[in-house]
């Protein structure tokens, strides 16, 4: 499989076979990501890391990925100090950056920005999040986590919990899980339900989807994917506290859970998951964060053509 020169804009640009191949390469990257093995695979390459809005976690993970493979990183972590503030177009910023580097990772507040950047760049663009649009590397690292923790993606029943309306990661994740034939439960307050198009799309892909506003039947669930319910979504702070509280995961929630249930969260969390869960074997969210590094190493090496 050859990914050389390819852009990574949306998870939908990849087939199931391609996704599995990326995860396979990511698995091989794990010892290097852990610092147990050294690599100079990308020692002649420069990655531009263009963060038009701050996202510490995503940026650090990408930059670590590049450096673990011996590559170099240039870029900025917020647009404040750059010519963008002076009104430069994204197209011009990209045309400038690509003349200095071999691959561009970008995060930008406008939907479709990565797609636009890809039109102007001859080097591969990796989308690190475009507004409320896509965040394909998050989706891949979520899939990688499920595969590593559970042995396979397919044989699980997965519940997505929290803000399913605005949480962009859950839309791509639902699509990707449907691609793998995974049955899902969408658990959210009624006002933050999974958009109809996403539900329809999953059903058209042949998977069984249950919609609920209560987190029950936990004994049937293998993976609990929790997302943050944001305060801004509720005009009334009391309403927010009541709603957010009813989806909070703590030891009591997990009482009836399967032995090997894993709890995932894209982080940062506020109080969706009580810290008492951290020490249980269910807590997979810190390992999930780590998994961002080998997945991003795999993607960078693949689009640069150093892994085939």
């Amino acid at each position, binding site marked *: 499989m050859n990914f050389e020169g390819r852009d990574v804009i949306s998870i939908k640009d990849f087939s199931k076979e391609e996704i599995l191949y990326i995860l396979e390469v990511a698995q091989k990257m794990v010892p290097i990501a852990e610092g147990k093995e050294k690599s100079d695979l990308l020692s002649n390459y420069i990655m531009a890391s263009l963060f038009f809005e701050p996202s510490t976690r995503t940026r650090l993970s990408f930059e670590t990925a590049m450096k673990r493979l011996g590559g170099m990183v240039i870029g900025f972590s917020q647009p404040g100090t750059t010519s963008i503030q002076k009104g430069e177009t994204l197209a011009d910023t990209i045309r400038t950056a690509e003349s200095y580097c071999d691959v561009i990772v970008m995060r*930008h507040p*406008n*939907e479709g*920005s990565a797609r*636009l950047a890809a039109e102007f760049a001859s080097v591969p663009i990796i989308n690190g999040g475009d*507004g409320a*649009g896509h965040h394909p590397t998050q989706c891949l690292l979520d899939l990688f986590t499920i595969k590593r923790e559970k042995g396979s993606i397919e044989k699980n029943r997965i519940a997505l919990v929290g803000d399913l309306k605005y949480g962009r990661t859950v839309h791509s994740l639902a699509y990707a899980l449907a691609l793998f034939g995974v049955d899902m439960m969408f658990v959210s307050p009624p006002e933050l339900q999974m958009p109809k198009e996403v539900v329809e799309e999953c059903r058209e892909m042949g998977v069984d989807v249950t919609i609920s506003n209560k987190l029950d039947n936990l004994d049937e669930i293998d993976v609990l994917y929790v997302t943050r319910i944001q305060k801004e979504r509720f005009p009334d702070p009391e309403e927010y506290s009541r709603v957010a509280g009813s989806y909070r995961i703590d030891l009591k929630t997990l009482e009836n859970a399967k032995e090997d249930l894993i709890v995932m969260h894209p982080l940062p969390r506020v109080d969706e998951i009580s810290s008492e869960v951290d020490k249980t074997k269910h807590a997979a969210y810190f390992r999930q964060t780590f998994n961002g590094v080998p997945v991003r190493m795999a993607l960078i090496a693949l689009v640069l053509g150093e892994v085939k």
Partner: protein
Amino acid sequence: MKELKVQPIKDGTVIDHIAPGNALKVLKILGITETQPDSVISIAINVTGKRGKKDIVKIENRELDTKEVDKIALIAPNATINIIRNTEVVEKRRVEVPDEIVGIVKCANPNCISNMKEPVESKFIVKSKNPLRIKCYYCEREPDDISSQII
């Protein structure tokens, strides 16, 4: 009631088979709602034709180019365009919804990169021609009301 005949024209464009009630929209899309000194425009609404009721628009001294025809296709997908020179029909073409719509519809998402000051035209991918469904190439949103988003 006395029938009001639309006179044949010598040079220009006749847009026929517009779904009844859409003639004024077609003119709006073409940007010729205001009086144009060199162009006489006749409109016939609810004309009974062979295939039922229809609207007809006749524009004198102006030949529509393909890009303009594409614009019409979005609200009058069954229309035919007749180019008239010296009272003869020299060209007759059907409007067809293209696979891609470039520079005609503005994305309804204010946060879409195509609505920022970037050197690109708006671009939509046609998901289905009947019923017409399009999605923004950049942000992938579908406009609720296409005709209100026409540039």
